[in-house]
């Protein structure tokens, strides 16, 4: 049977891609951020997961507000990045996992999550930056990725309690999949940040660290926040914490924190890297 063996939280901001493209990892500004990653890379290279389920939000590449899915997932064998408006060089395609994707879709829609199902889906920095962080030089082609996209842009958007339940449903779907494969779940984005308005630049370090603690030991506490509570505590774009909450929902068994690196700021955000190990009861 399929197993979720662990999970990762990581930032996904475009500035990381620029820093990596320009070889800035060892500069004083970036070093405290990038220094967190080798233990996670080592763990992934040792465990060699077959599939990554990756929660992210689209920032206006695949989806425009003409039609904005609340939840969307890919079921394709391959995904492409594209110009997001800044002329970023196009990067290698991301490998998909169609069979497990459809299994998840069948299972969660039957449970009541009305997912938009995509056979073609351009994936933006929200998905590609985390993959490149884990396998630098865009060497992620060997890992199969299932993109799950959550609306974090336009209200109304799904509340933390709903994204946590979505994660639970995906967790149940994976654990019921008959093939013997290992899955790791990425929750990307966040943490506290605000890009827009006179309140731009808002970061709440104490709140971020509390969220990371609760993701490990008491995720249900995070589901008590509304999105507007997250805006108040963490800034307008802190609603991206929904991706971390969804990730945590997929972990139905015992969770152990293996590694953490909180650093702020990178660009305008608080960055929370965390590696969790997961085991279902025997």
């Amino acid at each position, binding site marked *: 049977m399929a197993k979720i063996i662990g999970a990762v939280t990581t930032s996904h901001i475009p*500035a990381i891609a620029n820093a990596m493209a320009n070889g800035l990892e060892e500069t004083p500004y970036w070093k405290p951020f990038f220094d967190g990653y080798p233990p996670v890379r080592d763990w992934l290279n040792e465990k060699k997961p077959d599939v990554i389920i990756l929660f992210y939000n689209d*920032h*206006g*590449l695949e989806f*425009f*507000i*003409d039609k904005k899915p609340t939840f969307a997932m890919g079921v394709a064998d391959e995904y492409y990045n*594209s*110009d*997001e*408006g*800044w*002329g970023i060089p196009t990067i290698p395609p991301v490998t998909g996992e169609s069979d497990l994707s459809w299994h998840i879709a069948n299972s969660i829609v039957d449970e009541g999550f009305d997912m938009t199902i995509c056979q073609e889906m351009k994936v933006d920095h929200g998905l590609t930056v985390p993959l490149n962080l884990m396998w630098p030089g865009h060497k992620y082609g060997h890992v199969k990725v299932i993109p799950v996209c959550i609306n974090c*842009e*336009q*209200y*109304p958007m799904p509340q933390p309690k709903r994204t946590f339940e979505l994660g639970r449903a995906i967790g149940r779907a994976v654990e019921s999949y008959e093939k013997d494969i290992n899955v790791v779940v990425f929750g990307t984005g966040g943490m506290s940040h*605000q*890009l*827009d*308005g*006179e*309140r*731009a*630049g*808002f*970061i*709440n*370090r*104490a709140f971020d660290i509390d969220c990371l603690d609760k993701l490990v030991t008491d995720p249900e506490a995070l589901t008590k926040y509304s999105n*507007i509570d997250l*805006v*108040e505590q963490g800034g*307008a*774009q802190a609603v991206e914490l929904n991706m971390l909450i969804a990730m945590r929902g997929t972990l139905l068994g015992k969770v152990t924190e293996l590694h953490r690196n909180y*650093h*702020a*700021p990178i*660009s*305008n955000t*608080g960055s929370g890297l965390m590696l969790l190990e997961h085991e279902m009861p025997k």
Partner: protein
Amino acid sequence: MASNYTDRQFQGTYLFDGQMAKKGYGLNKMCYSFNDQVARDEFNADPEAYCEKFKLTEAQKEAIRNRDVIGLLREGGSIYYLAKFTGLLKLNMQDIGGLQTGMSTDEFKAMLEKNGRGEV
């Protein structure tokens, strides 16, 4: 008139709800088009004509002309699409932060450092 999503308000924060999405539709659609180089070139060649093509309101055109990010937010711009407009102007997120808060980019960066250390 679309209903507000919430009555809760935070100073200096523009929640992008149905009312804003309706008001800013043409503006955001124009900014979304900037994903394509051809569109960026067309805008740069004649910004006024390009704004007209997407039926921007006078207030939106004025804010585009003045690179007035706060004005664009007030007129229904979503930061995710406005970032494509400001990217076209070769401004990064700290430049935009400075523009919105009345700081220089360096002052804004210093504030981020301070906030990141939790000195608030």
